[in-house]
C-alpha cells in the first residue's frame, strides 16, 4: 500500500508546503494510527517482564524484573506444553501457508493465462468467496469434518486453510501482470509443455507474488483462533492461540496465570516479527514490480 503512494509523494509534499498547516494532518493521522497499533504491543512487551506480584501493582509501562522467571515458569507449565503448542502453530502456519501458496499460484496462473469454458464463472465464485468471512465457515466445516471422521486431527485445521480465495485472486492478478503472454508463446514454440512452462517460466516470475501470499496466509493461520478452537479437542494438537486461551479461561476459582499468558503472547509474536523482517525485502520488490508493469 505504501509504495503505491510513492510516486506522488514529492508532489504531495510540494502541495503540502503550499497548503501550510494541513500538510501535517496526514502525518499526524498516521502517527496516531501507529501509536494505536504499537502501544498495546509495547504494553505486552513491558508486562511480560513483570512478575505476578508486580503485574497489577506497578505502573503500566514500568518494566518489571520477572521476565526470566516467567519464561522458566512458562517452559515448565504442564511439562512444557507451551513449546508443543508453538511447534503445532509452526506446522499449521508454515505447512498451511506453503500448501496454500502452491494451490493459489497454480490456480491463479491457470485463471490468468488459459482460456477455458467457465473461467469467468470460477473467478466470480472465488470473488464471492472472498466476501464470506472464514468465521462463518468454521461451524459447517466442523460438522462436515466430523462426518468424515477428520475432526480433531491436524488435517482438520490444515485443509480448510489451503484453499484461500483471496490468495488465488492475488495470484491471478499478479500472474496477469508479471507473466508476459509473449514469453509463454515463445516457450510453446520451442516445444515446452504446460507443466514445463509453469515450472520454468511462470513460477519464477511469480515468486515475489507468491511470497506475499505466503506471508498473508502465514499470519492469518498463525492468528487464527476460531477454527482450531472448534476443530480440536485434544490439547496436544492445540496451536498457541487456543492453548493460551485455555490458560486464560481456567475458571474463576483457579489462580490466574496472567503473567505466563502475557509472556507466552510475547514469545508467540517473535516469529511473526522475525518473518516480516526477513521477508520484507521480497514484499517490497513485489509491489513495486507490479506497479512498474
Amino acid at each position, binding site marked *: 500500500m505504501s509504495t503505491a503512494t510513492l510516486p506522488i509523494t514529492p508532489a504531495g509534499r510540494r502541495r503540502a508546503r503550499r497548503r501550510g498547516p494541513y500538510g501535517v494532518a496526514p502525518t499526524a493521522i498516521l502517527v496516531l494510527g501507529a501509536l494505536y497499533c504499537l502501544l498495546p504491543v509495547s504494553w505486552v512487551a513491558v508486562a511480560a517482564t513483570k512478575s505476578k506480584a508486580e503485574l497489577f501493582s506497578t505502573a503500566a509501562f514500568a518494566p518489571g524484573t520477572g521476565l526470566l522467571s516467567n519464561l522458566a515458569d512458562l517452559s515448565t507449565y504442564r511439562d512444557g506444553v507451551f513449546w508443543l503448542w508453538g511447534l503445532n502453530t509452526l506446522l499449521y502456519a508454515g505447512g498451511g501457508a506453503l500448501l496454500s501458496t502452491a494451490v493459489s499460484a497454480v490456480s491463479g496462473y491457470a485463471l490468468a493465462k488459459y482460456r477455458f469454458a467457465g473461467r469467468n464463472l470460477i473467478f466470480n465464485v472465488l470473488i464471492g468467496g472472498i466476501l464470506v468471512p472464514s468465521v462463518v465457515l468454521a461451524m459447517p466445516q466442523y460438522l462436515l469434518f466430523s462426518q468424515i471422521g477428520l475432526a480433531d486431527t491436524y488435517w482438520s485445521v490444515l485443509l480448510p486453510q489451503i484453499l484461500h480465495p483471496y490468495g488465488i485472486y492475488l495470484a491471478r492478478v499478479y500472474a496477469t501482470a508479471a507473466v508476459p503472454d509473449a514469453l509463454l508463446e515463445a516457450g510453446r514454440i520451442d516445444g515446452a509443455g504446460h507443466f514445463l512452462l509453469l515450472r520454468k517460466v511462470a513460477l519464477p516470475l511469480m515468486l515475489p507474488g507468491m511470497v506475499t501470499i505466503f506471508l498473508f496466509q502465514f499470519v492469518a493461520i498463525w492468528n487464527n483462533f476460531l477454527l482450531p478452537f472448534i476443530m480440536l479437542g485434544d490439547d496436544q494438537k492445540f496451536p498457541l492461540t487456543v492453548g493460551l486461551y485455555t490458560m486464560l479461561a481456567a475458571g*474463576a*476459582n483457579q489462580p490466574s496465570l496472567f503473567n505466563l499468558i502475557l509472556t507466552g503472547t510475547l514469545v508467540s509474536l517473535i516469529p511473526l516479527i522475525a518473518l516480516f523482517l526477513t521477508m520484507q525485502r521480497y514484499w517490497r520488490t513485489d509491489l513495486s514490480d507490479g506497479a512498474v508493469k
Partner: protein
Amino acid sequence: MRTPRLAAAAAAALATVLAAGCSTSTGAAPEPDAAAAQSSAPAGPVTLTYWTWAPNMDKVVEVWNEAHPDVQVTVSKQAGGDDAAAKYLTAAKAGNPPDLVQAEYQMLPSFVAADAVADLAAEAAQAKAAFSEGTWGQVTLGTDGVYAIPQDSGPMMLYYRQDLFEKYGIEVPKTWDEYAEAARAVRKKDPKVFLGTFSSKDPGSFAGLAQQAGAQWWSISGDAWKVAVDDAATVKVADYWGGLVKEGVIDDQPYFTPEWNKALNDGTLLTWPSAVWGPGVLASNAPKGKGKWAIAPLPQWSAGENVSGFWGGSSTAVSATTPHKAAAVRFATWLNTDPQALDLLIKEAAVYPAATKGGELLTEAPEYFAGQADFWQQAAAISATARGFTFGPNVNVTYDAFKNAFDKAVQEKSAFSGAVRQMQDATVADMQKSGFQLAQ
C-alpha cells in the same frame, strides 16, 4: 485481547448452530445394549478421553492409569466456563464428544436437555452415599436420573480484611443490614475505601446470593418448567445491592479485573462475598494481603438465620454415546469419592471436593490464611448450611441477560429489580422459542 471477543463470537456461533440442531432428530442415539455388551466383555484396554479445565488433572489421572491398566484415561485440558459447555454440546451434536467431561452444575441441565450426557442411575448408585443430600440434588436435577458425579462445590462465605476491620473499628456483619451500615461507616472514615463491590459481570455470584435468600429460579412440575428468576427473594437481593450502589457506599466495579485485583491488594476493598475456592484467587491476585484476610459466614437476611448459597462447582459427566459407559462411571466414581483421589484433587487440582469425606482431608489452613488456623473447619460448617436450586436448561441465556441488564442498571443507576425482570423475560422467551413447556 482478541481471543475473548472471538471466544464470545464462537460461543454465539455454537449456540446458533445448537438451536438449529435442536429441531433435527438426533441420529446418534445411545445404544444401551451394545454399550452393556461391550463393557461386560472388554477386549484389551479401554481408552477414555476426558475434557476438563482443572489444573494438573493429568497428574491425578496418572495415578488411576497406573492402578488400572484395563482402563486408560487421557486428559485433554480445555478452556473453562461457558465456552467449554458450548464446545462440548457441539461435539456431542456432531457425534464425536469425549467419553467424560467436566460439567458445571448450572450447565448440566442443558446437557441433559440435548441428550448429550448419559443417565448413570444404575452404575452410580453406590456413589450417592459419599455426598450430602444438597450436593447430590445438583446432579439428579430433582429426578430419578443421575447425570454426573459431583466433583467440587462452592459454598459461599464472606472474605474480609481482618486488620482493616480493626483499624476502622467495624464488627464482622452478621446480617445484611449490618453490612450496609458498615459500608456507610467505612465511607465516612476513609472516602477512598469501599466495604465491597457489586459485580455486574458475575451472574454465578448473584445466583449464589439469591439462593441464600431462598430463590428458586427454575423448578419442574410434571412435564413443565416453572421459571421464577424474578421471585420475591431475588428481587429483595437485587434491590438491596442496587440501593447500596445508588447510595454510593458500595463500589460497582466487576470482579476479576486488574482494578479489582489492585483494590484487593492495596486494602481499598475490604470484603468479598465469595465461595470456598476464594483462597487461590486471593493468593494470586492480592499477594500483599497474605495473612490479613479471614472468612466468616455470609451476612444473613434476618438475625439468627444461618444459610448460604453456592457459587460455582462442577461435576464429572459421561457422554451419552460413549461405548465404555461402565468404565467411564468407574473412573468418575473413583476420581470423586476415593480418598486417595480426593487428596490428589485437593493438592494438585486445588479444588474443594464435593464429597463429604473431602472436608476431613483438609486440615491445615491455606498458607494465605495463616492467621485463621481453623479455616477449613469454618468452611465445612458454612458448607453444611449452603442451599442451591435447580438450574434450568438455558442458564447461559439467563446469565447473559444478567450481564447485559445489570451492566446497564449499574451505569444508569436504575433499579436493579428491573434488571431482574429482564432476566426473567429473556429466560422465558428463550425457553418458549426452544419449545420447552412452561407452567404458569
